[in-house]
């Protein structure tokens, strides 16, 4: 289990009381801005990043990310461009990058070819929200074969037994959905969430990333000690949309 990525996570987790993973939609609002945002985020101390290849049917995404997907596609963003951009950032910045997308993108590209490409471009792995492990056997095998990290999910509705099952197939870390619902909506940081996270903790020894609805320092303070990685998705897109890519650095720094 001691992959270089795990070692990286361990080391970071020793340095910081919580890690940050952020999210961008590739090609949105433009390739230039994307690059600036990645640079700003890395400089601001982000520990991991999700690069979302836009998809026309982003079922699990809320309005902010959904519209970013759409705009990117309208602007003609292709899968190839996304993978090329990914190569550029992995060459330039020294943190782990994950591709996030829906399964059809992988499927049409060819899952094996997709894994090979990820590996060749030095990506760390992938996050595919519409691919439950039962449907993803081939994908999991190929990711494993190419030494990539396929990130799987826990959710508050996942029973303990299923958490164990998912954990058994997981590598790197587990992405814990903070609540029901899609990306971008508010989350209630409550005792329910705390007890859910302790259920997660019991089910796996892997680090836990908590995502959906994290927007500010208070949220992060709440989850410190309960999860290992805080995932910030829609909020940074909102900030870029409203205040420009320059504002992202300040925002990230304000979180910890």
């Amino acid at each position, binding site marked *: 289990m001691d992959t270089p990525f795990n070692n990286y996570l361990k080391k970071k987790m020793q340095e910081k009381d919580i890690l940050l993973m952020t999210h961008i939609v590739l090609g949105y609002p433009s390739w230039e801005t994307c690059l600036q945002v990645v640079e700003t985020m890395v400089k601001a101390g982000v520990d991991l990043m999700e690069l979302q290849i836009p998809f026309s049917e982003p079922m699990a995404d809320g309005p902010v990310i959904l519209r970013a997907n759409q705009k990117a596609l309208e602007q003609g963003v292709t899968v190839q461009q996304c993978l090329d951009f990914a190569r550029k950032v992995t060459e330039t910045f020294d943190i782990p990058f994950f591709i996030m997308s829906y399964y059809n993108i992988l499927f049409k590209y060819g899952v094996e070819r997709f894994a090979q490409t990820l590996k060749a471009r030095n990506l760390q792995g992938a996050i595919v929200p519409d691919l439950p492990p039962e449907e993803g056997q081939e994908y999991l095998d190929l990711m494993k074969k190419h030494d990539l990290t396929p990130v799987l999910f826990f959710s508050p*509705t996942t029973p303990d037994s299923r958490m164990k099952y998912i954990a058994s197939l997981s590598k790197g870390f587990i992405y814990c959905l903070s609540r029901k*619902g899609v990306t971008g909506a508010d989350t209630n940081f409550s005792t329910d969430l705390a007890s859910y996270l302790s259920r997660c903790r019991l089910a796996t020894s892997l680090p836990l990333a908590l995502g959906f609805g994290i927007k500010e320092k208070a949220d992060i303070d709440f989850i410190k000690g309960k999860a290992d990685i805080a995932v910030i998705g829609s909020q940074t897109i909102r900030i870029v949309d409203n205040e420009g890519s320059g504002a992202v650095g300040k925002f990230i720094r304000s979180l910890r």
Partner: protein
Amino acid sequence: MKNRGYYGEFGGAFIPEILVATFDELVDAFEKAKNDPSFWKEYLEIMSTYSCRPTPLTPAENLSHYFGGAQIFIKREDLNHTGAHKANNVMGQGLLVKRMKKTRVIAETGAGQHGVATATMAAKFGFRCTIYMGEVDVKRQRPNVFWMQRLGAEVIPVKDGTAILKDAINEAFRDWITHMDDTHYVLGTACGPHPFPEMVSYFQSIIGQEARKQILEKEGRLPKRVFACVGGGSNALGIFKAFLDDPVELVGVEAGGKGLPTGQHASRLASRDGSIGVAQGYKTFFLQNNDGQMKETHSVAAGLDYVGVSPILSSLKEQGRIRVESATDQEVIDALSLTLKKEGLIPALESAHAFAQAFKEAGKLNRDDLIIINQSGRGDKDIFTIADAFDDPSWKEFIQEKAHGYTL
């Protein structure tokens, strides 16, 4: 995840983790219902007292004579309450919702038919109801929006994506992901993640069960061919299922739109433009580009204008058990016109696709061959579209006068 529901390589349940428990619950409830003989009885009871089942099988003597070939019979799903086969599915799922003790239903709708059907079922069963409908469709299909609202449903226009049916489906899933505790998503066709394809075709199979019995009673023999239009595939599977083990040719008819060569169509199986993909929770043939992004589709019939198709149909097609053809918008309008004049029937534009294909074939069959066309719905809901298709000047005048009256 208890069961994934594959048909050959098609189907599955490509769902976010958060929904897995909900699907497991649904699969459970559906399996239990299927194995409980009182459930189907309850279903038949409500379909015969609330809707008008069994629906007739109408001999179309004039059309048969006109084409001079096969004897044509028409299965009259247009006579269902709310005017289409959609009623079969929503009432069935409604009973299931009662069993699951949920209190709210949501649905996507394109043409509005399934939305009206769901809102109707919700009113009948006392469920709260939210309908997602692409904004483009809301604009095109205002009469149905009006009825859904009057029936007590909330209609949410979906502005994202291409603002049509598939986007409404995504949005319904997003609602469900958020409210699965008290909410059931009443998917409108035999698509989506397992158990929807199976469940929807299970409820729709009442069409073929009746039709098979009726034709045997009337004619003492099986039909040579059965024609049904294919949007998501629910009415087609509904009538096909009963004939799967019979020597009967089953013909699905997709939207040929402006013609297959123009690319402006919705033929996922009949054209070469469809390719296998995974979206909206299931694997099937989609109209998508090489990156896997879904394409825009076109049909004069809003209910056929969808990028995916039932995985069960994809599988039957691959097995060679069904034949899939397409009919163009123009062929459909012509078929509709002929059916009106010859039989006094007004098929929905969707259903008229099945008629169009049957008309291409009827004359080449023998006089003792029987064919059945599934009239999945009635066309009077389509008056705005049909009047436009016929380019009717007095209709335009009427609308202009109406509009003028509203401005005063």
